[in-house]
Every structure is written in C-alpha cells, then in structure tokens.
C-alpha cells in the first residue's frame, strides 16, 4: 500500500550488478589467460604491479576522495528512499467560492474517518486508509484486517457499498480508484479451541 522505491532499487541492482559482474569476469579472464592473445601484458602469470602503479600516480588520492564522496552520496540517498512512504494527498481545498473563504481538509482527517467507519464493519478488526489524488478525483488505499473466519466477499461488498459510499458522500465526488488489501488479524490463541477428553 505504501510506496516504495521499487524501480530505483531494481535499476540500481541491475547497474551495480553488471559492473561487479564485468569486473569479476575480467579478472577471471586475465587469470585464466584468455586475454594474453589480445595483449601480452595481460598474461595469466603477470603480477598485479601495473594495477598498483595506477594508485601511485599523483593526485590519485584526490580522485579517491572525490569518488568516495560520490559513492557516499549515492549510498546515503539510496538508503534514505527505502523507508516506505504513505504519500497522502495535499490538503484538500473544498470551498464553493474562494472569495468568501477557504475550506481546508487534511487527507489524513478523511482517511481516519474512513478507517473508523470500516472498523465498524462486521468481521473487520482493524483498518488503515491512505487518501491520495485530489478532492475531485480521490483515490483510497485501504488495508483491512479481517477475522480469520470472516466472510471475505461480504467485507468487500461492504467496503464497496457503504464505506466507499460514505467517503464519496463526504467528499462530494465518486472515488476515482479504490484499492483494498485484505489481511487476516492474528487471533488470540488458536489453542483455545482444542479439547482434551480423558
């Protein structure tokens, strides 16, 4: 329900994976002598001295620090987008005429009301709601925790008819999209059911 950086993660993994794969394969290719025909210096028995000599060039420390900074920025930015975001809508403006005053409703306020409404549904023990979009075309993302024996289809119908109807009435517009995810509430103890007869 919450937004994650799925696309960024996959692109990052593909790019860095390819880089590591290519370097690894290149090392193996030299090690197994596959590159010797191309360049005699890259022979399997040669030592790694030439690689180290690159690090001994003047200004290489400066380059290392710059590269380190770039890597640090990429790493930190990538880490920071991993926290899933709820991304609520901006506060809704719901006045008839802005000249006589503004009416502001936070999306969280409406989401909370919808969640409270859902929790009064039979078989639903908990609800989380995220509201996105605009006041004219609102989108609701709903997660309900149903009891494990609840009638799932009845809950879906109840969400579609009553909860969505109430939200549409409050907002004064039909909901342009509703996504409903149904989880199952953890019950206190399944063991309670068991009976033992001597």
């Amino acid at each position: 329900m919450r937004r994650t950086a799925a696309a960024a993660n996959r692109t990052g993994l593909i790019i860095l994976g390819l880089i590591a794969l290519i370097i690894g394969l290149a090392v193996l290719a030299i090690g197994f002598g596959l590159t010797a025909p191309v360049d005699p210096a890259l022979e399997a028995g040669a030592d790694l001295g030439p690689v180290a000599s690159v690090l001994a060039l003047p200004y290489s420390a400066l380059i290392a620090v710059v590269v380190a900074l770039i890597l640090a920025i990429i790493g930190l930015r990538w880490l920071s987008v991993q926290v899933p975001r709820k991304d609520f809508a901006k506060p809704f403006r719901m006045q008839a005429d802005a000249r006589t005053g503004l009416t502001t409703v936070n999306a969280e306020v409406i989401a909370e009301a919808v969640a409270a409404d859902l929790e009064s549904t039979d078989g639903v023990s908990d609800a989380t709601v995220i509201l996105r979009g605009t006041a004219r075309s609102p989108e609701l993302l709903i997660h309900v925790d149903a009891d494990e024996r609840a009638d799932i289809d009845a809950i879906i119908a109840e969400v579609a008819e009553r909860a969505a109807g109430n939200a549409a009435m409050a907002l004064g517009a039909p909901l342009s999209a509703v996504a409903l995810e149904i989880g199952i509430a953890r019950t206190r103890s399944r063991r309670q059911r068991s009976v033992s007869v001597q």
Partner: protein
Amino acid sequence: MSTRLLRKRPSRIGPAVVVALILLLLAVGLGWAGIAAFVSFGSVAAALIEAPDSAIAEAAGNLHWNSAVVIAVGIVLALLGLIAFILGISPGARRILGVSAAGSEHIGDFEVALPTSALSQIAAAAADGVDGVSGVKASSNARSTIVTFSTPIRDVEPIRAEVEAAVRERFASISFDRTPTVKVQARRSQS
C-alpha cells in the same frame, strides 16, 4: 487509470539496503585512504600509495593474475554481480492474489487483493476447524497453498480428506480471480 495501486511484486528493499551499505563502506575506505595520503604527503597532489615501497605496491607485485586469491576474488565479484543483476531483472514472486469485486457506483476503479500470508492464515483457520486436527501450518504462493496438519489419530486419511474439503470450501467462498489449489499433508503427532 492504468497504474495499479497495490504492489504485486517485491520491491527488493533488502538487497538494495545491502548494496547501499557496501557502497558506503567502499566510500569510507576510499575516503579514509585518500585523506591519510593527503596528511602524510602534505599536499592534495598526493598519490594514494607510495610505489614501490608501500605494502600495497609490494603485495601487488607479488600477486599474479592466476593466483588462487585473485581468481577467488574474481569469482566472488562475478557471483555477487550476477545475483544483484538477477534480483534486479527478475520480477520476483507475486505477493498478492487478485480478488474479483463488483465495485459500486461510488467507485471508478476497484482493485481487491489478498496477500499470500492472509491466504495461508485463512487456510490454516479452516483446517483448524476440523475435528481431530491438533496443529496446522500453511504456506502459500499466488497459485497454491500447502496445508500441513498434525493429528494424534492413527488413520489420517479421512481427516486429510476432511481438511482438504474444508479448505477448498473456504477458498470457494471467496471470489478469487483464480482460486488457488490446495494440497494437504498430514503428520502424526505423538500423544
């Protein structure tokens, strides 16, 4: 609206965090080495290592491309790269099951889904309702559920059939886009 609101596939948060942390470690190492070189050389024109008397230069001179260490490093790098690449490319297991829903006049686009974890819990609860079942475990993917129950009764087959019927019936009561298949295994428990 064409974009789906519910995420069907894993977003690879775990691997991304690991790779980001590796990047940060590399950055710290490189930055440390670079600054240490500045300090010892006393100028930004410093080289990262002092060839040929530094330990690294010496070690590199003694290492050969076909030595076991270098080959091992190459294999590890290539493998890790391949794993990261596959994690990025492959869509991963679906984590939700679509449920068809009629919607209503208040809703433009209605999308309903059940996570596979919820499916397992529903199956386990249904199986647990059968008499003679003392414990249930269920695991699911987007297409099937495997229910493993334990029972103290010697003749498990009738109970197995009953459990299977109970779970199937429970699944049939939910209008899945594609009803998951059910497989039931019995395990005798000591008691």
